[in-house]
Each structure stands twice: as structure tokens, then as C-alpha cells.
């Protein structure tokens, strides 16, 4: 069979939410890598009079200085997608490592780890991130780490639950009897079997990350002007809501679509792996921030 047909068959077999999520996310990923192609204008160049409404030339209109809103929305993706994916990745890997291990070994280590997580969880999320950024600076890597730190405890808690459940599975006990070491079991049995569930949690994490990053930008702690980020564009939109009410539509839709796409991908992955007798979870029961 030709490559085209085979790939089409492959795609057809995937669950609908997965396809929808990938389709929605793709343009933004594309833009992150190669922004020039889709954007109609440059993000920083002043094109025309400020606050024009949407038109054929400026698809979403112009902002308060006269820059093209559509292009700025797209370029903002570079910042927001990068920050959200990176922080989600960091939170996922570290949180999972800690949580899965704690849940699996149970006992005292588990109790200690969970107490620490509890304390971290009781700090209000945005406040902590806010605080860290103010103290350590507004650089991008600070943003990423701050958001990751804020999301890590919930990931740890979630993966701990998974570890705890898998600990009691028959095949884990059988491996213990056969003489497997803790690490061998974690590597060969616990991790592979928990991955589908954890991936769903990761998608929720990414979705939260986008929202948190946008919120921080909105408060002025994200990308600094003149660089565009969805958050600071929305802040500007607020100021001119009576004059140009449609200003905020673009960036807001972008955030919503990206955030939603992550969730859809997660839901799709869950459906895809549901046939296996793994630890089940739905994106609905994994809390948001």
C-alpha cells in the first residue's frame, strides 16, 4: 500500500478527539517554528492607524499603536507555546518521578513526600508564581520554572495515586517474588502501565500551563512590550474595550484553542489506551489549577 494510503488509514484509526486536538494545535506549533509563512505582517512593525476594525488587509484589525493584530496573535504563540510546553514538561517529569516512586514504595517515604506536597499545594498557585517572577526577574526561563514549580505538586499527587494502585497489581507482586529489584519493577512494569494515565494528566498540565502563563502575562509579568504575548494583548484590549471591542477576540481565541487542544489530545490518548487494563482516569477527574 502506498505511504499516503497507509498514513490515511493510520490517522483514521485514531480516536476523534486526538485528531481534533492535533489539528487545532498544529498551526500554532507551525507558527512557533516558522512564523513567517502564515503571518500577514510583522509583529512589531507599525502598519497603519491604530484600532482599526477587522478588514481584508488586517484580518483582525490593528492594535492601539497600529500593529496588525492577526500577526501579533500568531507571533505571541511563540512565547506562550514555548513556555507552556516547557513548564508542563518539567512539572511532568519531576512530579511523576517523585510521585510514582513515593506511591510505589509506600510507607514512610510516601508519607513524608506527601506532607511536603500538601504544604506546597496550599500555597495559592498564581501568587507563588507571581512572587517568584518578581523576585528572580522576568526572564523567560524564570517564568518556565515558576510555572513548573507551581504545577509540580499536583502532578506528584496524581502520579502517587497511580503508583499506589499499581503496587498491588498481581504482575508486580509476581515480579517481586521472582526476585526483581524495585528499580526493575518501576522501569519495566509500573512506568509502562501508568504512562497512558499519566499522559492524560500531562495534557491537563499543559492546558493549565497555558492559562497560567497567559494570566501572568496579563498581570504584566510575562513577555515585555513590544513583544507580543496573548496575555499582554488582552490587557491592552481591556483598556480599549469601548472603542475597539473586537480587539481581544483574537488573542483570547488563541489561548482557548491551544488550551482546549491539549485537553482534546489528552482525551484522545485516554480513549486510545482505554482497551488496556491500565489505571484509568479521565481528564475530568484530574483537577485544573
Amino acid at each position: 500500500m502506498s505511504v499516503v494510503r497507509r498514513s490515511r488509514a493510520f490517522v483514521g484509526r485514531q480516536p476523534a478527539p486526538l485528531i481534533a486536538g492535533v489539528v487545532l494545535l498544529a498551526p500554532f506549533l507551525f507558527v512557533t517554528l516558522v512564523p513567517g509563512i502564515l503571518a500577514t505582517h510583522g509583529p512589531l512593525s507599525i502598519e497603519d492607524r491604530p484600532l482599526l476594525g477587522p478588514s481584508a488587509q488586517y484580518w483582525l484589525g490593528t492594535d492601539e499603536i497600529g500593529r496588525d493584530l492577526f500577526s501579533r496573535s500568531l507571533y505571541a504563540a511563540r512565547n506562550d507555546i514555548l513556555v507552556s510546553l516547557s513548564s508542563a514538561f518539567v512539572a511532568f517529569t519531576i512530579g511523576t518521578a517523585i510521585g510514582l516512586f513515593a506511591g510505589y514504595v509506600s510507607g514512610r517515604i510516601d508519607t513524608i513526600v506527601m506532607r511536603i506536597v500538601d504544604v506546597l499545594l496550599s500555597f495559592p498557585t498564581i501568587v507563588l508564581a507571581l512572587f517568584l517572577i518578581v523576585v528572580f526577574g522576568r526572564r523567560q526561563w524564570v517564568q518556565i520554572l515558576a510555572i513548573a514549580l507551581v504545577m509540580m505538586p499536583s502532578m506528584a499527587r496524581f502520579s502517587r495515586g497511580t503508583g499506589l494502585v499499581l503496587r498491588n497489581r498481581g504482575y508486580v507482586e509476581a515480579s517481586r517474588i521472582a526476585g526483581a529489584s524495585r528499580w526493575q519493577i518501576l522501569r519495566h512494569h509500573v512506568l509502562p502501565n501508568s504512562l497512558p494515565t499519566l499522559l492524560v494528566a500531562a495534557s491537563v498540565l499543559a492546558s493549565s500551563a497555558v492559562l497560567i502563563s497567559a494570566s501572568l502575562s496579563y498581570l504584566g509579568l510575562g513577555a515585555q512590550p513590544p513583544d507580543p504575548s496573548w496575555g499582554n494583548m488582552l490587557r491592552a484590549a481591556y483598556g480599549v474595550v469601548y472603542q475597539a471591542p473586537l480587539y481581544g477576540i483574537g488573542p483570547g481565541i488563541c489561548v482557548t484553542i491551544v488550551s482546549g487542544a491539549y485537553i482534546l489530545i489528552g482525551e484522545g490518548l485516554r480513549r486510545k489506551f482505554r482497551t488496556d487494563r491500565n489505571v484509568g482516569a479521565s481528564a475530568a477527574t484530574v483537577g485544573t489549577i
Partner: protein
Amino acid sequence: MPGALEVDGLSVTYRAGRTLVHALDDVALTLPPGHRMAIVGESGSGKSTLGLAVMGLLPGNAAFSCQRLSIDGTAIDLRNTKQLRSLRGNTVSMVFQDAKASLDPVRTVGSQIAEPLRVHRVVPKRDIGHEVERLLRDVEIKRPTQTARQYPHELSGGMRQRAMIAAALAGRPTVLIADEPTSALDVTTQAAVIDLIGRLGQSGTMSALLITHDLALVAGFADSVTVMYAGRIVETGSVDEIYSAPAHPYTRALLASIPSLFGDRNRLLGSIPGAVPDLNLRLPGCVFEPRCAVGRGREICRTVAPPMIAVGGGGQARCHFPGEQAAIPTDVVVPVAISSSRAEMTTPTVELRSIVKSFHRKSMTRGRRSRTVAVNGVDLVIGAGESVGIVGESGSGKTTLARVLVGLEVADSGEKMIRVGDALVAVTRLPKDYVQFVFQDPGDSLDPLMSVGDIIAEPLVLRDGGRPNRYRNQVAALLDDVGLRVEMAERRPLELSGGQRQRVAIARALSTQPKLIIADEAVASLDMSARGQILNLFSRLQAEHGFAYLYISHDLSMVRHVCDRVVVMYGGRVMESASTDDLFVGPRHPYTQALITAVPVPDPRVERQRERMAIRGEANDEAPTTGCAFRARCPIAQDICAEEVPRLDTTSSHGVACHFADQAASLYERVSVDAEIVPAERVHHG
């Protein structure tokens, strides 16, 4: 005289995604008034669906058609929800399997029993409280007032089930349907509850319909039996006829596959090859034909669906050749050495001394930090090549003991000794290939992401290193050993049936040539027809490979067939230890006696004459830790039983841990049935 329940032409189809599952196919039955009928079948037989359908409780994705349904002469329209609602809990009521899940955990037991009273206005409002207590007394609950105010989780399993029965009786129904009411209960409790339902069904005003998979249970309960297979009724008849002269090959094969307390315990259990067919296919011909010893391959059985034919004694069978005899396959070639290997008893392979293991539970229902002693000083000796069975009910500590033995739990105190050369050496950790374990649930004990071959090779990889590929030859040999095709190595566990998965688990256990294999309820989650295969497999493998075998179970009949020596546990202690023959012919501990008299026997005549040994209460994990563990329930307990722990005499071959063993023996003689009664001529074995 209209039947209490009459069904005709009932068919039910479930829609699961894009597939249709034909759960019931043109089912008809008649339940006379004041009659006790049992509906028997394995998984996929449709028996539960039948019960739900009659009550109109089918889930939303079920499509059904019914030619006629009437209760006590009144026609019922299954699509008339109003009519159904007025009948449910009123004229026909149902008792479900798991009482813990079938009672609302946030409401008191009394309020739930009161529900049908209220809804159907059985008694005036002010009398509801009294009526609830009266019902609880009817189901033999001693403190009805107190129990009514308790929540389901505060009651024991047996009491919960009785409460459910009370709620079902509230509306004074004509028909009581009980769907596997005792599967979740212990043997001794099960006997009491079934007796209760049986008595209620005999009262003349109410008929009882018992839905179960347990053929032994049915023998003592039912007046008539209906056998179901793959959504169809394949045989009906009086209970005596069914057990003495079953007409349908399926019934006969089923009866041959169940172990019994009486009869030749060395016979191989019958089994039915193959598996229950996919219920979404509708093939021509007899649905049982592919597995039928009589009809397999026969032209007419393959092409024409058999009608119900009248057979002797007023029964009917859906078969072209009812009553025809054929050899029941036991699917295993029996090596001659099978009996002799069982008699060997030389140097012990494993010895446990004074094992004590307790747990600190943090569960919310029992308060924090409660300490339960699961194993309270147990000694155990297993000889080379010996097959030992440990029986006990819930809370006996048998599973914990096994887990301590194999290293999954660490004992609080006591010694574990294994054989090194000619001597016994105490160890804290077992060598990797000394003991292996087969778990109860094969779906849980096999990693769903690994291939069968990798699963079987894992112990070898862990012991000798390398990658699974290195052991391909051994894996192939093992697969062959357990009766699976070599190509299975590439498959995943999810593609296999329950019996096949258990064979994979056994192959894995064999891979490192262990000295001892422990099987913890290894067949409990399999269908009755598949159990025989696995047990026979164990016997053959043991004869060929010579490992010692520890079989943990609550099922006494099963243990009797499989083991040479039996250890009875209760409340974390050993009550009695003896060879199988000695134990079952002459049990000397009151608990053993109670157990044996409670186990149902698949022979109606025996069951009718049996008397049960009287003990109080239920098995749970709250047995006293001082003195004799059994004293709270023992009919002959006295003061000394609370003060002194009765010691098991380990030197004698039949040890009893009881201060009054002689008294128990005489008590038992009055109650027991002569074990020499051999059931009438049944099936031949190949």
C-alpha cells in the same frame, strides 16, 4: 392453577458499541407456586439477564421481546413502567449478589427495608418501624431494633445479605428471585442463608428462584433445576432427575467437572474443552455442538437447532440425542505415577515455625491504627513433592501465611526454613527460584503490555540475566507443558481466555523449576468447566516435575481432590492438620466439622438428609487473639478455652488444636452423614 411465574418467548439483546450480544434466545419457563427452582449456568449463560428481564430491570442498551410474561396469572407488559413499578418489591422482588454494593452506604439498613413498605403502602405509616423489625426477625437477625439503625458497612456480610432478603420480603411477594446471593459469603454463612431462602420458598405462598453457578448448592435447595447455556435453556427437570440422570451432554459434563466431598477423590475432574461462544454470533445448529462430547461434528447437531424434547421424569432437554452416553474428556493424559507421587513424604522442603504477622490498618471505617493479627503463631511443614492444602474462611490468615512464605510480606516473628542439601536452614529471604506463586486473578497477574513469551521468561531473566529472547526454547517447552500452542508466545494476555491466562501463569511459575509452587485460589475466578482442566494440569505437572504444592482455598471439595494433606485455619491459627482421607472421614475439630457439614454436596438425596453443625456468628477478622481463636463461635467452648491456647500436636499425623476434641468427635457422629453413600451411576470417564 396459574404458575407463580410464567415466561414464554423471551429474548434479550445488548448493544455494546457496534456489536450486538444475544444474551437470551427464546427462553421459556414456568415456576409453580410454593416451589423452589434453581437456574444454573456459567458465565455467559444469560441467567442473570433472565432475572433482570423478568423484573424489567434491564439496562438502557438492552432490546428485548417477550411473548408472554405473567406473575400469579396477571399478564405483565414489560414496556409499561408504571405497572412494573407497582410490581417490583411488591409481587416480585429480587436479592442481589453483593450485599455490600447493593445497599446504599449512606442510609441506614432500616430505612432501606422500609422503602418498599412505604412505596407500596404495605402497612400504615405508623407501623412501618415495627414491620421492619418483624422482617428482620423473620430473617433470623437477633437484634432487629439495633440492626435497623445501623449502616450497611457496620454489618457483617451474612447480616447484610439477610437485610437484603428482609427488604425483598417486605412487600410479601409471590416470587422471590435471588441472583447469586451467597457468592460473596463464607461457606458456613452461605449454608445458613441458602437454608433461609429455601425455607422461605417452601412456605406455600411464595416461590423462590435461585440463580447460581454453583451446582452443589442447588442440590440441597431446589425442587427443580433449569440449566442454561449461552442464552438458551438446555435442560429442565426435577432435582433428583437432573443429578442422577442428566439428559443434556452439557449438564452431564458440568456434573462431572465439579469436585465433591464424597466419592472417589482420586478421579480426574471432567472438563469441557473450548470456551463459551461469542454471543454476538448467531450460528445455525446447536450452540453447544463445538464442545459437545456427544454431538461434535455430527451433521444434524451442526446444522439444525435442537428443539426441547421431553425426557424421563417430566423434564426436557434441548438436544438431538438426549441421554446418550459418551466419554467425558479429561483432556489430560494421566501418567501412572500420579498416585504414588502423592504418597511421598521425606525431608521437608519448607518449614515455617511460629509465624506471627499483624497489620496496622488505617482504614477510615475502623478508626486509625487498629492492629489486626492475621497470623497468630502458625507452624507448617511441607515435604518434598507433597501437596498440601490450607483451607479457611475470610480472616483465617491463610493468604497472609502464603504471602509471608513467599516473601511478599515480612513476618513479625517466627522462622522460615528451607532445605539446603540435607539440612533445614533458616533464611530471611528465599533464593529466587525456590518458591513460585500462582495468583487468583490471572487477568491481574499478567502484565498486559508484555507478550506471553516475555512473561513466562521473566523469572529466568531475573535469575540468569540476559534478554527474554535467550530463553525461547524453554518458553516453548513450558507452553507445551501447560497445554498451550507454541505460537501463543507472541500473543498478549488480553487476547486469551481466563483459563488460558492461568495456564500462562502456571508456565511462568514452572520456569525456574521451583521446589514449591503456591496456588492461592488459583481456580476461583474461572468457570466451573475450566476449573477441572487447571486442577488436572496441576496434578500432572506435579507428577512430572516433582515440586511440592501448597494449595490455598476456601473450597473444601476442591482441596479434597487436589491435596494429600489438609491444614484447617481459623483466626490466624491452625485448628486441625491431617491427611485428606483422615480429615474428611473423621474430622476432630468443631470448626472443621462445621465446615464440612456446611459444604454443599451435588447430590440431592445426601443433601436432604444432612444436618449442619451448629456454630454462631460469622467468619471475619475479629477472632479473639487470646486463648482458642474459635471459642467465640464454638458450640462446646468453655472457660479454659479463653485462658489457654490449645496446642496442635505436631508429632501425630492427625493433629487437633482443641481442648475437647473427644467431645467434638461424639457430637459429630450424631450429625454427620455416612460417607459411604455413593451417588447413583453417573458418567463414565475416559
